């Protein structure tokens, strides 16, 4: 066992060295990618140092230490896998026309929304199934391969940016929402719960879901809508069309998953559109939503109304709106006033094009993308 462990530590050290040797000579064309490469190499070197110190300290020569050496190995191997997946692979696949393009896009967005954090690295190593994803620990956002050739889904990039904003400002953003949620559910149990055990169980699970993920996901929907306006709503409607086909608008078959039901997400998006002054667009979107629910009737899980009262959606919407204002993020309408042609405007125009003049939208989108590419100095 101890010989096996020693071999495993040595092998992991060799693999770490190979990654460093692969990356070190590579030149990145843009500063964000260069910085991400440096971070990756530093993380790899730090891991290597930890592996070396275990190999040198004598514990891999006596079976007495086998349980502890195996725990140390599993820690370091998990660290290795994390670095490989979220640092090494994304930077290894760097391409100027994809990652370089998104570096320009994300830096422009951060300026336009007035967010002073260092922008994340954006990689196109995802796919349409995994879609847009963020890994906040390493400040990386992953988009489907080929996304640099399209504009319509970029509203969802603002949701992922929302996760990074939320990481820093969560308490400012959701405010007293969790307390309101707890108070509401306590009242519901007092009114009905003693007679309905199933309701009490549903409330318990909903409270956990709010704590663990629903508050954050709804906050990110609200932040995205605040920042990119109607385009985020259209992106969400696109997702709703897909989920409605398998009875998913109200999460009937799996209510307590990471994301709240699509219908609840739509409701908060509409609220935020009104709060930032896009009432006409909110009204148009609400009408499309009505058409969708009429065309594809979806079932609701039990106690849906008790779990998602309108007042709770109002309060989280207002809290996130106030939070965004307090941290001086520029809303979509504000960006239109302070910037000639912010990225958020281009995405909204892309939606106008596809909805009103789809025949010319492809050519138009390519022109916009080429224009953004020309910003790469």
């Amino acid at each position: 066992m101890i010989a096996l462990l020693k071999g495993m530590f040595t092998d992991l050290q060799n693999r770490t060295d190979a990654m460093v040797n692969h990356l070190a000579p590579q030149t990145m064309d843009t500063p964000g990618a260069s910085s991400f490469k440096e971070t990756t190499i530093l993380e790899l070197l730090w891991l290597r140092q930890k592996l070396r110190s275990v190999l040198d300290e004598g514990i891999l020569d006596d079976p007495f230490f086998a349980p502890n050496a195996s725990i140390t190995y599993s820690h370091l191997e998990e660290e290795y896998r994390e670095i490989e997946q979220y640092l090494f692979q994304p930077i290894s696949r760097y391409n100027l026309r994809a990652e370089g393009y998104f570096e320009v896009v994300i830096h422009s967005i951060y300026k336009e929304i007035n967010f002073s954090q260092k922008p994340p690295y954006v990689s196109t190593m995802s796919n349409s199934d995994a879609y847009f994803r963020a890994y906040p620990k390493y400040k990386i956002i992953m988009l489907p391969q080929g996304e640099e050739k399209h504009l319509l889904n970029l509203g969802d990039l603002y949701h992922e940016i929302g996760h990074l904003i939320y990481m820093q400002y969560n308490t400012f953003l959701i405010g007293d929402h969790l307390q309101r949620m707890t108070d509401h559910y306590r009242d519901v149990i007092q009114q009905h719960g003693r007679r309905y055990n199933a309701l009490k169980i549903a409330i318990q699970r909903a409270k956990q879901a709010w704590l663990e993920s629903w508050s954050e996901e709804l906050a990110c929907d609200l932040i995205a809508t605040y920042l990119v306006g109607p385009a985020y709503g259209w992106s969400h409607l696109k997702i709703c069309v897909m989920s409605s086909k398998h009875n998913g608008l109200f999460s009937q078959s799996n209510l307590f998953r990471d994301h709240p039901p699509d219908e609840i997400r739509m409701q908060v998006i509409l609220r935020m559109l009104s709060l930032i002054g896009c009432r006409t667009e909110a009204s148009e979107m609400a009408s499309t939503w009505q058409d969708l629910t009429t065309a594809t009737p979806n079932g609701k899980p039990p106690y849906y109304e008790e779990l998602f009262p309108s007042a709770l959606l109002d309060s989280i919407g207002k809290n996130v709106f106030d939070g965004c204002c307090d941290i001086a993020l520029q809303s979509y309408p504000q960006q239109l006033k302070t910037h000639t042609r912010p990225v958020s405007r281009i995405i909204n125009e892309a939606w106008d094009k596809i909805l009103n003049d789809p025949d010319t939208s492809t050519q138009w989108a390519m022109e916009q993308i080429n224009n953004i590419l020309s910003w790469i100095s």
Partner: protein
Amino acid sequence: MSKTGQRWEQYSALDEITDQVNQAIILLKKAFLLSTEKENPPGLAVSDAEILFARNILRELFRFIFSIRQKTKVLPYAQIPEPAATDLRNKLDGLLPPRRKMTAIEQAIDSGEHLTRYHFRLLDDLITALDAERSLVIQNLRKPTT
């Protein structure tokens, strides 16, 4: 706080605690071998300060785990938020060897006595349970946020 912040903080704390406890056991095992065996692997060394540090780490862990039974109000590991801390304590409490066996280790650590191979077997069971819990958390957490 929610998924991104709270879960990461919880994992970071658990990861740090597991690593510290594992390192503490390694240090005490080194001290045990150096004091009982004539021939030891090269590189095996431990200072008095490291032994003291290791004993403190284990003392703190025992206070955390046994706080349910003792109903202690001031708990170590304040960095793990509730209800995650209570959840973790309950899990570890259920996985541990009987309390009387652990008490023997606690007493040996408190009095500065050398631990025995039997004590180390119990400590290995303890760290294995703690690490299994850590591993479970990271598997859930490593999924990216969509």
